């Protein structure tokens, strides 16, 4: 039986993240660098600049006046936050040319964006300092799926058929057929991209948040956001039903059930803004 990381071999298109994100990380992690250095790196890439400005000017933020420059965006949104948004839009472009016979990439990204904004709203309710980190974690939670579609399409088709005939979530069917599921493949991909452990653990444990060792809040947030996104039926990455809830993940977030309708309504609003801004030109 294959291992999750073996699926990544030979997938040239996802072999590396656009260099720009890694350059951004280097600069942010360099104590001698300033926000202006970050601005210069982003401004070097006109496509990225345009996408970021579109995002920060979208209804996702609701700033009263138009943000015209990257420097302005950094001072308002924050350096770490803006580089997380840069990561989000870069990853979507890496996956622009995936096979679409099982799930269209548009539907896949719509579900991913729905999970991302829901995670962002939940993080906001919890007063997390960088809600964009949660947006990216949600956006990337199913990133192993397109790899499986590409490298193990026959097995995934079998898993989908299993779900259609049994009361089983798709990740459980993947486990049965492949011996691992998309969360393992996604985590292996993020590891090969050397992305932060908080993102990796949120992706790796989004169906089993209890297994998260270092970032249980990130994993629990994405777990709950995935459930909510599936319930709202905004896009799909193959799963057609609401996956099972790990009750301790909800408890870990410290939210009341009375807050759920407000979270869902805000997630719906942000979803429409983010779909436009994030996948407008990719999907």
């Amino acid at each position, binding site marked *: 039986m294959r291992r999750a990381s073996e699926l990544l071999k030979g997938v040239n298109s996802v072999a590396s993240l656009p260099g720009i994100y890694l350059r951004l990380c280097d600069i942010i992690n360099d104590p001698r660098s300033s926000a202006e250095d970050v601005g210069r790196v982003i401004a070097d890439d006109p496509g990225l600049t345009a996408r970021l400005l579109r995002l920060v000017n979208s*209804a996702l*933020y*609701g700033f*009263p006046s138009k943000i015209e420059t990257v420097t302005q965006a950094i001072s308002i949104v924050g350096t770490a936050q803006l580089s997380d948004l840069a990561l989000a839009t870069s990853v979507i472009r890496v996956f622009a040319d995936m096979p679409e016979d099982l799930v269209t990439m548009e539907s896949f990204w719509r579900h991913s964006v729905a999970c991302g904004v829901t995670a962002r709203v939940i993080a*906001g309710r919890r*007063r997390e300092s960088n809600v964009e980190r949660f947006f990216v974690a949600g956006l990337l939670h199913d990133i192993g799926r397109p790899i499986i579609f590409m490298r193990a399409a026959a097995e995934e088709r079998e898993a989908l058929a299993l779900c259609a005939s049994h*009361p*089983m*979530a798709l990740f459980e069917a993947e486990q049965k057929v492949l011996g691992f599921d998309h969360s393992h493949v996604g985590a292996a991909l993020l590891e090969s991209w050397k992305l932060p452990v908080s993102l990796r653990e949120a992706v790796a444990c989004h169906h089993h948040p209890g297994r998260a060792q270092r970032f249980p809040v990130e994993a629990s947030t994405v777990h*709950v956001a995935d*459930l*909510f996104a*599936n*319930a*709202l*039926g905004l896009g799909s990455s193959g799963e*057609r*039903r*609401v*996956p*099972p*809830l790990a*009750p301790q993940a*909800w408890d870990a977030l410290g939210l009341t*059930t009375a*807050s*759920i*309708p*407000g979270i*869902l*309504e*805000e997630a719906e*609003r942000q979803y429409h803004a983010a779909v436009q801004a994030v996948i407008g030109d990719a999907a």
Partner: protein
Amino acid sequence: MKLHLETYQGEAPSTIAVRIEELQLGMMPSVDVTDQNGRLLVPAGTSLTERHLRAFEMWGVTEIRVQASGSEPPEPAPAPLTPEQLAHGAEAVRSQFALVNLDHPVLAELFGFVAFRAAQRLWSGRRHA
């Protein structure tokens, strides 16, 4: 199984302090609305728009005080859905929830919301039972 289908009918708040989830367009804050750092977001007496509500969400405002006289929404609310229409909405989304335990309060709340949305879609003007 406890369903929360009636909760989303948007009953007009009768109190002066209103949680942001319950704010309606056209309501007027009775005092200036500020963020946690005291920065002014919306002056008292402003008629609230969609944009203001998003800004409250964004800047962590959880509750504001509104003028009781300005609390009516500018447009008449759509007629509330009947129990039968809500039941049809619930039926339409039930299979989507086949894998989860609807006795859990989170799933019950989620199901109620999604069923209400489905009912709204089914009866949004042009379609009839």
